[in-house]
């Protein structure tokens, strides 16, 4: 039975799109391509492989390490997974959830043995939701969840 040409095109396109995206997803789930970021410990361990590559490092902004150069948008801080710290520098606007003791994902080019020059900063939210009047409790809880998720 002959099929009108546009219908046939739709059928083939929909099949390619569905099977293709599904296949790509399943395949990439085996290759590790779905891992969004390295922890600081991993990044240091894979030091040589990562040199001059664009990578993401995720962890927590270590409390007490965030400094801002007066009059500029330049900041520095340590990103930690509880074991290893990596110094990060960045210039620009940061997301609203970016703060000390909270999760962060930094993107940039890994240079062996240097501070990590981030060109993008994303805040990583923990799974904790706490009313604003219970602030202290919330900070402690989200720190704990975040470090647990980095193991």
């Amino acid at each position, binding site marked *: 039975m002959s099929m009108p040409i546009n219908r046939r095109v739709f059928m083939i396109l929909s099949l390619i799109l*569905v099977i293709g995206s599904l296949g790509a997803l*399943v395949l990439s789930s085996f290759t590790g391509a779905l891992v969004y970021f390295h922890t600081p410990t991993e990044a240091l361990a894979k030091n040589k492989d990562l040199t001059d590559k664009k990578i993401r490092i995720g962890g927590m902004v270590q409390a007490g390490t965030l400094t801002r150069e007066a009059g500029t948008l330049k900041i520095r801080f340590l990103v930690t997974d509880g074991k290893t710290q990596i110094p990060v520098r960045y210039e620009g606007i940061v997301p609203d959830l970016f703060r000390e003791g909270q999760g962060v994902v930094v993107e940039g080019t890994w240079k062996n043995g240097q501070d990590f020059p981030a060109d993008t900063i994303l805040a990583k939210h923990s799974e904790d939701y706490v009313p604003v009047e219970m602030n202290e409790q919330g900070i402690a809880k989200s720190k704990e969840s975040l470090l647990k998720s980095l193991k």
Partner: protein
Amino acid sequence: MNILKKIQPLVGLATLIALAIGLWYVYQAPADFQQGGAVRILYIHVPSAKIALLSYLFLTAASILYLWKRYEGADILAEAAASVGAAFTVITLASGSIWGKPMWGTWWAWDARLTSMLVLLILYKGLMVLRHSLDDPVKGARATAILAIIGAVDLPIIHYSVVWWRTLHQPPSLATGENTAVHITGPLLPPLLILSVAFILLGLYMVTVKARQIEARRHLDALEAARMHHDE
């Protein structure tokens, strides 16, 4: 399907009541310690995501039933679930994106959770296109059912994505199974629970409405076909 006609007003009423109570609790909810008022986006995002996945589960079950027993009703329900599931997936992605811009600092990230959710939308849309791209509606229904069952592999990937891989998206706040834990404290929790129930009802209502519309269309098509045959 007479049963749909009977339950539609009941489910509709229950949906409206549950939505009203849920939204009242959303209005009363305090600000979150990190996100401030943006936490209210969660109350649309999380229940929508749940229904987006539940719709596909329902669609898969209906597809299996259709291929096995050839009930036309199961096929109609599968077709309805695709349209409803697509709507909930769109809102899940859009609300997540609107939350992500101020909170994460980006509209979109190609992490495992977001990517697998986008694949779900492609699945729903693909199923809708495939069904109508075949001349013979019965062949279209069977092909769609088979593709739907293959696509179900995306469900565990979405569900476990935040556990299996490191993602930008946060892990579940209402964890079940091994490490049961509730990460939502005090008055921030009730709106989520009530709206989750409300959205289950809303999803059910929308499937009912859509299924009756599909059934009416098929009846009309059959009647027109019979008349044409008669005229010849």
